[in-house]
């Protein structure tokens, strides 16, 4: 199993913080996208990212090359972290999401695209969390079926079925708001 981040492993094993920074330059955005889609809150998503990378940093010396890709490991830990947070607290209602996006630097979204964003995120938050994760892995980051199944801790067939159900449910929800 080839890992595009394998070049960082020797330095990560040695505890080189520069390697951690490089890993974040490469992978933080992906982990953050997944966490944001699952939680619907940018601050919670950032907290999950922090927990995930720190867990990796602490575990890095014991990393065994060939067991999994680093990104797969990160996404799996982040997904589980999101599930834990969702169980502990109710997610924000989607009504607040446009404000969250507006706070960002350069977030000059046109009204139409902002409404589209709101509609998608609202619909996503109405889906069961596993369907949400499956859709985000597939469409936000084009994660392979094999890796996505590994991240979610299920077989490839089960992931495929989850994706089919998620697509169907999301489309139905989006049609209600006439965004598909």
């Amino acid at each position, binding site marked *: 199993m080839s890992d595009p981040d394998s070049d960082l492993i020797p330095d990560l094993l040695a505890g080189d913080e520069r390697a951690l920074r490089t890993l974040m330059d490469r992978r933080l*955005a992906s982990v953050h996208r997944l966490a944001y889609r699952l939680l619907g809150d940018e601050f919670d998503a950032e907290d999950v990212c922090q927990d995930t990378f*720190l867990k990796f940093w602490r575990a890095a010396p014991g990393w065994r090359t060939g067991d999994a890709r680093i990104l797969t490991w990160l996404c799996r830990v982040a997904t589980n972290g999101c599930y834990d947070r969702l169980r502990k607290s109710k997610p924000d209602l989607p009504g607040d999401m446009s404000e969250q996006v507006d706070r960002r630097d350069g977030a000059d979204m046109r009204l139409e695209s902002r409404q589209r964003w709101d509609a998608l995120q609202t619909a996503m938050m109405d889906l069961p969390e596993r369907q949400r994760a499956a859709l985000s892995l597939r469409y936000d980051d084009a994660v392979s079926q094999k890796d996505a199944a590994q991240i979610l801790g299920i077989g490839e067939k089960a992931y495929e079925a989850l994706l089919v159900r998620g697509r169907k449910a999301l489309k139905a929800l*989006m049609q209600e708001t006439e965004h598909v």
Partner: protein
Amino acid sequence: MSEDMQNLFDSSTVPAPRGALTDRIMAAAATQTPLPAANDRKPWLWSAAAGVAATLVAGFFVLSSQPSEAELWAAQADAAGFGELYAWVDAEID
């Protein structure tokens, strides 16, 4: 349907994390000590402990499989043809 979905997600991308997040994680990482590797936890200690445990277990089985003194006497008595007599010696006397 899949292409529609891809278009939908492409047109509603999640904003990138704020730049400060990387610095925040780096600052937190600086205070964390990486865990020792699983194969780096004094393997000599584990092998020594395993050796001692194996010796104790083997010793127990060797001792428990040794014939007792009574069994040795019985065997000697059988070999000498005095097994019955020896049994009489061992028998309880009313």
